[in-house]
């Protein structure tokens, strides 16, 4: 966090080495978040670049007493949600097309595919943007619930409810794509 503070101060003075430090530490997490939220690599890359530009433009508004990562995610989130709303206002809550069941005729292959994280990833990708967001923030970015609520800009009980609903929808989607006889 101290390194973030120093780099943010450098960037405030127009020194781009500050940006390099911030990017080194936060770019992986930011990219992963955008990819999960937007569900499209090229769009995520575009918003990734816009986010860093926004960081440079607004770094003077960053409160160095607070952690940098949630501030960064908030900037990225605003850009990403604006983009999703511009495309289709309903797309935030909309889920993707239902997934096809795992392909392949070999039962062993199918069983392995069922167990793989690729299947969970595909099910996650089929959820709505807001469900994907809450799950990636909790399980991949490992944000504690208060940080999660702050990032989403909602009260703690709302964050909890959204997390549960997203988990329930993910479970239902996995169950729906499971082979007959394995619907749980």
């Amino acid at each position, binding site marked *: 966090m101290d390194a973030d503070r120093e780099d943010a101060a450098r960037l405030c003075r127009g020194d*781009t080495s500050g940006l390099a430090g911030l990017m080194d530490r936060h770019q992986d997490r930011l*990219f992963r978040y955008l990819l999960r939220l937007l569900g499209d690599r090229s769009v995520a*890359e575009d918003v990734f*670049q816009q986010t860093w530009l926004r960081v440079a433009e607004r770094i003077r508004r960053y409160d160095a007493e607070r952690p940098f990562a949630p501030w960064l995610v908030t900037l990225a989130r605003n850009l990403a949600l604006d983009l999703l709303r511009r495309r289709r206002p309903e797309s935030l809550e909309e889920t993707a097309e239902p997934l096809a069941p795992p392909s392949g005729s070999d039962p062993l292959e199918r069983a392995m595919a069922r167990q793989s994280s690729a299947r*969970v*990833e595909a099910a996650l990708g089929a959820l709505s943007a807001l469900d994907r967001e809450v*799950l990636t923030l909790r399980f991949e970015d490992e944000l504690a619930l208060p940080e999660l609520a702050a990032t989403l800009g909602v009260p703690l009980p709302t964050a909890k409810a959204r997390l549960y609903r997203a988990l329930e929808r993910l479970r239902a989607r996995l169950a729906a794509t499971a082979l007959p006889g394995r619907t749980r």
Partner: protein
Amino acid sequence: MSGHVAELLALAAAGALDTGEADRVAAHLGECPACAERAGEWRNLADALRRLPRPRPERALAARAREMVEAGLAERAERAFNRAALAFLVGLAWTLAIFGWVVFDLVAGELALRLARPIGSVAAWYAAYLVAGWLAAGAAAVMLGRRAQEEGRTV
């Protein structure tokens, strides 16, 4: 199993319960095999989410983003300099315009004395001077604007 218990089981797997809730869930699981089984399923799902592959940005993307930001910062610095220069020039122009009246008055008086005949209204000459200055500044602004537009198109 009630909906509330189902929610608690899912949130327990997500590590999103407070201490009191977590204790209540643990006590309930000891007495309820069905919920214990469901809790195991939620844990498996949570573990699968934690083990998902972590995509990373390509190095070229990070480099492009950095270049874009550096270009943006340079542009911002240039805009700030241009704003400051413009403010200075506007201030200087007004100073000269106000100071110009005093100079005009003195020069016109001196000229009229040397020529030994009236040279017309000082106010009219001053107005002509101001209009000529504004026209020259306007022409310069138009030329600079066109040049900036052309540069913008070629970038």
